[in-house]
């Protein structure tokens, strides 16, 4: 009797162990199930590179190039801001900060990670957006730049904590060796520790960018949501994620618009899959 009970429990554990794989596959299948139907009306190249997104006009224009470019512009902007600052902050926490300040800084970063994105979006709307409007004398502060700054901020916890882990796991002897040869602390960081931690830092950057691409609420609230091909970072843009969040509520189930939004979901899923697998490869390279 007890043997049977244990047998059942162990099977249940195995079953739950496979749950993650099951859910990833399930998510992908259901996105495909609802999203692939859009390719009855448009071809994949038309969908990916079509220049206009008018999903409810007759006939609908379902080209997501403006959305891809919107996401790309915001993501690039956020990466340019967050990578140097985030890695610098990680180096400061891992190498320079005194022990007591280190703990405070770490909890500050954790705090930032805990703030819900809709709260950050709200704060962005009431602070950042008016600032950008007045600094650049724009008709509206809801621009790609506002989104990039906010997203850079939101990517920080990911970049800082993973990069700090990578720096921390560099063997102490490397640093001691460099110092013993007469290098200053900064020379040891710059020429020895950073290169040794480079694959972990790469993973940190990739995961940070992954976070940025997938971010939805804050970006929807402060980038202005204009689904046109952007020409400048001071224009409103609309990202892939914001498009789904803003339009799914109005899309009729089973319409072309509905299928197209799921197809946008497939694009996002594939991007996040590539980013995460890539980052995982970098992290495992470090282990070898």
């Amino acid at each position, binding site marked *: 009797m007890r043997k049977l009970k*244990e047998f059942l429990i162990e099977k249940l554990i195995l079953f739950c162990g496979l749950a993650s794989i099951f*859910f990833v596959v399930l998510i992908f299948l259901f996105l495909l199930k609802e999203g692939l139907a859009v390719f009855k009306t448009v071809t994949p190249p038309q969908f990916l590179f079509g220049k206009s997104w008018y999903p409810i006009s007759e006939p609908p224009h379902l080209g997501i190039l403006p959305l891809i470019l919107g996401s790309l512009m915001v993501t690039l902007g956020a990466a340019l801001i967050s990578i140097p600052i985030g890695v610098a902050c990680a180096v*400061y926490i891992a190498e320079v900060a005194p022990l007591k300040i280190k703990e405070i800084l770490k909890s500050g970063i954790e705090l930032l990670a805990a703030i819900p994105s809709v709260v950050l979006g709200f704060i962005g709307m009431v602070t950042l957006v008016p600032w950008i409007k007045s600094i650049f004398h724009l008709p509206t502060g809801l621009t790609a730049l506002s989104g990039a700054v906010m997203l850079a901020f939101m990517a920080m916890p990911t970049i800082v904590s993973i990069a700090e882990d990578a720096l921390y796991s560099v063997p102490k002897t490397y640093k001691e060796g460099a110092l013993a040869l007469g290098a200053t602390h900064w020379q040891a960081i710059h020429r020895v520790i950073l290169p040794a931690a480079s694959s972990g830092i790469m993973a940190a950057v990739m995961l940070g960018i992954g976070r940025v691409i997938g971010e939805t609420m804050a970006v929807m609230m402060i980038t202005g949501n204009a689904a046109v091909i952007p020409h400048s970072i001071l224009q409103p843009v609309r990202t892939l994620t914001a498009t789904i969040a803003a339009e799914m509520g109005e899309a009729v189930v089973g319409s072309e618009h509905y299928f197209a939004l799921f197809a946008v979901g497939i694009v996002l899923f594939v991007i996040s899959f590539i980013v995460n697998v890539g980052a995982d490869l970098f992290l495992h390279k470090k282990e070898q």
Partner: protein
Amino acid sequence: MNDSTVTDCPASPALKLKKRSRDPVLTQRLAFAFLFVSTLLIIVPVGLIIVIIVQKGLPGITWQFLSDIPRQGMRSGGIFPAILGTIYLVSGAIVFALPIGLLSAVYLSEYARGNFLTRLIKLAIVNLAGVPSVVYGLFGLALFVTFFKFGASILSGALTLGIMILPIIITASLEALESVPHSFREASRSLGASRWQTIRYVVLPNAISGIITGTILGLGRAAGETAPILFTVAAFYLPQLPGSIFDQVMALPYHLYVISTQVPNVDEKIRYGTALVLLAMVLFMNLAAVVIRCRFRKKKKW
């Protein structure tokens, strides 16, 4: 420093380093200043955000605000249905995610061998954690709302949030289980306990703090997310309280989104007040997790 002082011993690696930057001490100072400023650029805004929300939100927090339903198209009254809705959703998500997540962690820590399958599971967890939150919303819409015909309901929303926080719970529980020393298991097995008995009576009790911490962090994440509940449960405006798990509810994060972008002329006090309640809820959970972690760490016997 001029070049003549550097040339007398060119073979030394330290001097090679020196040659590239004229004054290493000055370079170090500049570099550290840059690192410090970068850190401030992250930490100071975090503090400012909290201060602004608390300062502007606190005057709006009254008993009536917390316990009343929204009135006059959400321009006055309270946010009670949204608070309650978020509590329902978060509880539902955890009821679903905790057993699966915990057992999944048990599998990885106690049963899995270091083979291809284990690698695949870990990769799946990483991917699950990285899927954009709005894609979870689409998935919930396709699977729970449409395919299972649950409609936009607490059930659909809670299940969607549950799958979203699964990786958080698995990762935290796994870490807790793996930190239990191997000798504990060996001692238990050598006394004749079976594998499951060892897990049940030795490993799990010793890992409980880490598991609780992970669960609370998952709760905090679920409470703050908006995108997954957009199409699966959240109601724009619903003054009455839900009667069953097949009803829609209002939820705090979505309510904040609605009153700050969709409804014009909402009093600033209400907007900041809502932001403060949401922030306080999430930060309280994170704080609780930290406190539990610290308290158990002190008690640890190994």
